[in-house]
């Protein structure tokens, strides 16, 4: 039995201390990706295998560059949220789990921001 008031329970946001934030952002990024995925992947499929000049010309176009940036940002954030749940389900032991989540977060940030930088560099230089 809990002696907490409703207000106290809300302020504490449960044992995870962030309430439904993770759940909500996972869905928010999912909805964004329903729109962004076809817009990003179909031109990508078309461009993979093309020449250096053709690829740079394609992604120097603002529409392609903006969609690619939005997709990379949203997809890697969605990936981070998903991989965190996988780690939480399968890796036990507080230390190992914390290290795994921190490393995974840093890796997602590294690859995601590298992708953003690369697209921006192509868009601004080609």
């Amino acid at each position, binding site marked *: 039995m809990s002696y907490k008031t409703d207000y106290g329970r809300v302020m504490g946001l449960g044992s995870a201390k962030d309430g439904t934030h993770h759940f909500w952002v996972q869905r928010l990024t999912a909805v964004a990706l329903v729109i962004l995925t076809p817009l990003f992947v*179909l031109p990508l*499929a*078309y461009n*993979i295998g093309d020449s250096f000049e053709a690829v740079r010309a394609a992604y120097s176009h603002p529409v392609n560059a903006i969609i690619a940036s939005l997709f990379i940002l949203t997809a890697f954030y969605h*990936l981070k949220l998903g991989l965190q749940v*996988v780690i939480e389900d399968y890796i036990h032991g507080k230390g190992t789990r914390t290290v795994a989540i921190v490393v995974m977060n840093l890796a997602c940030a590294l690859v995601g921001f590298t992708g953003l930088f690369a697209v921006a560099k192509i868009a601004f230089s080609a």
Partner: protein
Amino acid sequence: MADVNRGNRPLSPHASIYRWPISAILSILHRITGSALSVSGILVVWWFLAAATSSDYFATVDGFLTSWFGGLILILSAWGLWFHFCNGIRHLFWDLGYGFGVEEVTQSSYLAIGISVILTIITILIA
């Protein structure tokens, strides 16, 4: 020992011979494709990075992605992405409270697989 039948009783569900419902297969596939798409994401970023760096470096990455092994990974990535996409839409409908009937879940399972295969073929035809 009162239990003379020990070792001879039926065990349920026997994990190794248990026939998975289609919905269970899709559930674990959603997780597997989602995790495996990390590799696809790294490859795509590598390709963009090469295009942002130099034509020599681009030739290296392009050579790998257009090899048979690179192509295989890209085709698997395309299916993984489209499956995760279709099954993700299924999850969003569930989040809104629709499609929970046993029949509906089975139908949407096959629908997700079918549409993901069609989208993969379209993607390969575009490439």
